């Protein structure tokens, strides 16, 4: 068994790693929360859009030599554009009653996820790839805790993206309109907001954020066509934990899960660290059925 001394020795760096992991989770999950919160669509294909973002970064670098960080806006823009046809696919579901819409959206996006991943395999083969970026494997150390440049960059961008998104949603007119639609589409429509447009817009932003998350993930992880399936379930847990449609909540949720997983590893085998994440999720949901920051956005 572990001595207290050892636990204390491991704890500080575990916390740091947990926060950084949380940052990574947060940047991938935020687009999901956007789509989930505004349109009540469970987008199982989210991970696959992130995968597309990873490939965009990869090809921009290999073919045109674009540095990975400069490809962030490109992958956001490309997937933002993809949001429109995707919305066209999803839109017929909104005519259905809410419960039916949820079920249909799960299956529809599951089908889309299969098609995207296998399509990617057909185009780019099943090869494992790595984006050769300058941050890969570069480490520095603060207070004896070794840190990876890649994770640090991801975390920084996570914070920047959250701030921008927060500003966008709180301050701008369009952002306010999106929030209104997310809270009550009918009332928003009565106030003269074009609900359809806001839906399309937030779908575009959601997918764009997914790709952005993917592009950032490619700084620290490998890419292959089926990479998207790996994380998407945990991302949903994070979204709901934070509270449906609450952008800030997602950040907290991601930090909690990241920290919980990192710290849990001190005490239990790494193979069951996700059990802790799921248990925390269920526990919080039983106490606060609306999630941590549910209801606000």
């Amino acid at each position, binding site marked *: 068994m572990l001595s207290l001394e*050892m636990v204390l*020795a*491991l704890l500080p*760096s*575990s916390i740091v*790693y*947990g926060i*950084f*992991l949380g940052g*990574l989770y947060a940047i991938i999950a935020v687009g999901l929360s956007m789509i989930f919160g505004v349109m009540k669509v469970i987008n199982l294909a989210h991970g696959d859009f992130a995968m597309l973002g990873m490939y965009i970064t990869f090809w921009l670098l290999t073919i045109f030599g674009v540095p990975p960080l400069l490809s962030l806006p490109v992958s956001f823009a490309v997937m933002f554009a993809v949001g429109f046809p995707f919305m066209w696919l999803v839109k017929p579901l909104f005519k259905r009653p809410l419960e039916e819409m949820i079920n249909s959206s799960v299956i529809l996006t599951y089908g889309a996820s299969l098609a995207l991943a*296998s399509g990617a*395999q057909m185009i780019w*083969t*099943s*090869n*494992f790839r*790595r984006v050769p970026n300058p941050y*890969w*494997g570069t*480490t520095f*150390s603060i207070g004896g805790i*070794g*840190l*990876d440049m890649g994770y640090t960059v991801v975390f920084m961008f996570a914070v920047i993206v959250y701030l921008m998104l927060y500003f966008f949603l709180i301050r701008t007119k369009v952002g306010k309109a999106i929030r209104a639609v997310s809270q009550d589409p009918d009332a928003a429509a009565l106030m003269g907001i074009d609900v359809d447009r806001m839906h399309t817009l937030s779908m575009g932003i959601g997918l764009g954020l997914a790709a952005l998350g993917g592009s950032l*993930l490619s700084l*620290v*992880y*490998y890419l*292959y*066509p*089926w990479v998207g399936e*790996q*994380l998407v379930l945990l991302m949903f847990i994070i979204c709901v934990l934070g509270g449906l449609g609450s952008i800030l909540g997602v950040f907290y949720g991601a930090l909690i899960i990241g920290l919980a*997983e*990192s*710290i849990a*590893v*001190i005490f239990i*085998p*790494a*193979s*069951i*660290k*996700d059990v802790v994440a799921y248990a925390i999720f269920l526990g919080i949901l039983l106490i606060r059925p609306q999630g941590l920051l549910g209801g606000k956005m």
Partner: protein
Amino acid sequence: MYYAERMRRGVVLSAAIVATIAVIVGFVVGIAGGYFWGLSAVPAPVTVTTTKTVTAPGAAKTVTATSTVTATKTVTAPAAAPLAGKVIKVGVVQPLSGPLAYFGESGLDGVKFATDEINAKGGVLGAKIELHIEDFGIDYKAAAAAAEKLITVDKVNVVVGGFASGAGYTIEDVTEKYHVPYVTIGCSADTITARGYHWVFRTAPNSTEYMLMMGHVLSMLYPKAKRVAILAENSEYGQASLRAIKKLAPQYGWTIVYDEPYEKRTPDFRPTLQKVKATNPDLIGLVSYLTDAALIMKQSKEVGINVPISTISGAGPQTLKFIDLTGKGAEGMVMASEFWPNKKWPYLPAVMDISYKFWDKYKRPIDFQAWAGIGVMYIIKDAVTRAKSLDHTDLRNAIASTNMFLPWMGPILFYPNGHAGWWKYNLVTYQIQKVRQVDGIPANIPWQSNGLSFYAVYPPKAAVAALTTP
């Protein structure tokens, strides 16, 4: 009554009966149609496509793989061609989509490569080999269905493939039931051949053998290592290896200080690695697939682990992709593998020859799965030659009594349980070293990455380079 009224007699009755029958008939016809359509879609036996022989500079140009095989075997005269006009149907079940596709394709390419070569030389006793390729993704029940289809519909003479041990289990269940010989590609879990099955043969080493080899080499390389931490993924592959390691550890004077399994598919191993570091190991052993192993290598540096890390099992890391993903940090790592294009033997030129041909054809380095695919096809060829028959039982008995030598594998002999004895003969340890000219291997080999490649270092009779402490 209201409920009763919901039924409208005439219309409902006829419509629903028609619907039910239509669905069933449609299903039957669909499969049947697909079957016949599929027959026409099956590619005709592959004809000669490669004639170009690229030989390594300095290698004996005359020796080719096949001639070596027949030379070392008991001589059978194929002139009579007793199977002329017949077709040897080989069913290939491999993961060709999903996360394992990279390895599955590699094995399939090996199978295709060998098939082309054999057919180009006139087939086996006049019979051409025909491949029936099935993809199971990662779905093991699809693997069983694929085997079922290959055997009952396509009537294949032998089934090969698998890669994942889980798929191997379900495939061998099917082949056992229909009494069809099954030769695995991959599937290293000990238990594949420990279930008392009669029809399964494995060319891959099992976990225990990998471990025996690696333990031996690692205790040579790091003689002072006493405390050993093992990071094994929580799959059958990882845990089977872990069990083997634990059993063998005392033999090398090792104390296993860490043996907790980890969950695959996580982007962050640092907390785990920290815990490993806290146990103060002298040596860390990995039982991981490709990406996890590469990620662990990378992140161990962040955590400040400066004890040697080594893979101690088969699967993933023994491909060039591992060096690709890990970068320069991979230098000095050792891993046991059955095949890599530089095993010494007297047959190195032949091995190099095949490696170059394979590279030309598929533009990928030949790796352990591809070698296994090629090997499996030559084993089948050999068995058919001896059996002079395509009957399942004859083939099975012929495979069981295989006693042959393949330049890239070494001697092939199957134990009664269907496992080929690797530890004794064929398993070789490779080390990732700087690419350079060594005896029989030029410096300009295409299968290198970051200036690194694999070099056979142990046992001495196979070694092309010396084991060096990184």
